[in-house]
């Protein structure tokens, strides 16, 4: 289970309000796409769930308990860039996740433990289609392959929550479509909660079971930092969902489905 509750969260940097009074209940296993204009606090929201930033006021709960205020293995992440370690090969990048857990002192495994970790890692690398490149360094990979590696790496720890910060923003449309085709079954199989920040509305609606739009509703021309962003649209894309899409009731579905398209 990995339901996230966001309760009355405010984020302020100095006298600039970034997010004002955010309330969200994210069900376990849902795929939430977060959209909105640049600078409206989408990434701040993601970093807050990640534990990298802290809310100024309010609380974030994971299954009813406060989220740890620093990143941990419960929450995997894929950033737009710099997500993988440039000094490790593809294989080592994924194996590292297992090594951190099992070898507190050296952060490295040897012998049988290492072989087991390598086996598990190779399965993941295979799943994201990088088997042929397992001994290459990330610099030798294309942008799409690097992001696939980042996904494999994030999945290695079997996180409860997967956070994606514009993961495919720097990819060409073809590669992006490939990444969507890769990610969706992975999510459906592993059943973790996913929060994805994106600029691409097609991507947001294509992948998500719920789309949340952030925007600033109030503007003070004399004090641009006075008001922060809040949720302006919250669309449930599952057929059974109670939230009407754009004001229209959804037709009843013949059977419960997760997919939206």
């Amino acid at each position, binding site marked *: 289970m990995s339901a996230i509750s966001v309760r009355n969260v405010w984020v302020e940097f100095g006298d600039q309000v970034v997010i004002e009074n955010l309330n969200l209940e994210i069900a376990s296993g849902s795929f939430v796409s977060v959209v909105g204009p640049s600078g409206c606090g989408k990434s701040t929201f993601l970093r807050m769930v990640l534990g990298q930033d802290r809310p100024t006021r309010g609380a974030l709960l994971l299954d009813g308990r406060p989220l740890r205020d620093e990143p*941990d293995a419960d929450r995997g992440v894929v950033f737009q860039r710099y997500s993988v370690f440039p000094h490790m090969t593809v294989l080592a990048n994924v194996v590292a996740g297992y090594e951190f857990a099992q070898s*507190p002192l050296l952060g490295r495994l040897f012998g049988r433990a290492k072989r087991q970790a390598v086996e598990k890692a190779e399965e993941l690398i295979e799943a994201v289609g990088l088997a042929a490149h397992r001994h290459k360094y990330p610099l*030798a990979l294309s942008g799409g392959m690097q992001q696939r590696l980042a996904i494999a790496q994030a999945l290695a720890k079997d996180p409860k929550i997967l956070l994606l910060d514009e993961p495919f923003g720097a990819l060409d449309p073809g590669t992006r479509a490939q990444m969507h085709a890769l990610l969706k079954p992975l999510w459906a199989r592993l059943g973790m909660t996913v929060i994805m920040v994106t600029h691409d509305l097609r991507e947001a609606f294509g992948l998500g079971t719920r789309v949340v739009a952030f925007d600033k509703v109030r503007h003070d021309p004399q004090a641009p930092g006075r008001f922060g962003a809040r949720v302006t649209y919250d669309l449930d894309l599952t057929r059974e969902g109670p939230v009407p899409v754009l004001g229209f009731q959804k037709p009843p579905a013949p059977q419960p489905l997760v997919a939206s398209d």
Partner: protein
Amino acid sequence: MRRAMNVRPAAGARILLAIIPFLLIAVVYVLGSAERRAANPNDKLLPPVSEMVQTTTRMATEPDRRTGEITMVADTVSSLQRLALGLGIATLTGLTLGIALGILPAFNAAGGSLVAVISMVPPMAILPILFIIFGLGELSKVALIVIGVAPPIVRDIAMTVQAIPVEQLVKAQTLGASTWQTVLRVALPQALPRLIEVVRLQIGPAFLFLIAAEAIAADSGLGYRIFLVRRYLAMDVILPYVAWITLLAFLMDWALAKLARSAFPWAYAEERR
């Protein structure tokens, strides 16, 4: 005609171009030396190459009558020992302190400005203090090299670690890494190629401090010898010694460059030829 910045010499031409300036210097020296000898047979300033070869052979092969040791070998050994100790200690200090400063904000807040101030202390100015505290033995010379060379290494490594994208540090934490594991598996490996680069850059200063310390108080060493024979205007000793020191420093630099490229191929993947 292509722009000058786009003209790239081929491999053969590159070697030829590299040799030409050395040849020019050699020719100028030989001509100048011959010119001065013709005017004054006792000239000591520009000794002919044959004379330097003769002196060097004597110093590098025959044992000294007083000490029984081969002078040049003994000098080289004692100098390199001091240099290796000094550079080694400075490198280790630089690496540990630099990584700690770079990755721990609290340590940086406490020690960052101290390091910034200490690195501005001119090492030569505190050489007398070192002589007073550590005596005239090996320790003061090694200490001078460490004090002169460590601060730039500390600062450089700290900056290198700080320049690691925060995404990578967060990523390591989401993979379950502790601070220590992040240092060991993320910060250290990414600091090492830069460490080798910095040590390469510090070979020059290290020799400077070594020779300065040896010139003032020592009983053997390359710098000691040069300053000893200076009294007799023995350019036939000084010039080969300078060339020898230069060669040693160049070889160290070259070896480190090779080491960095073979040990950390990922760091040089995008190097411009």
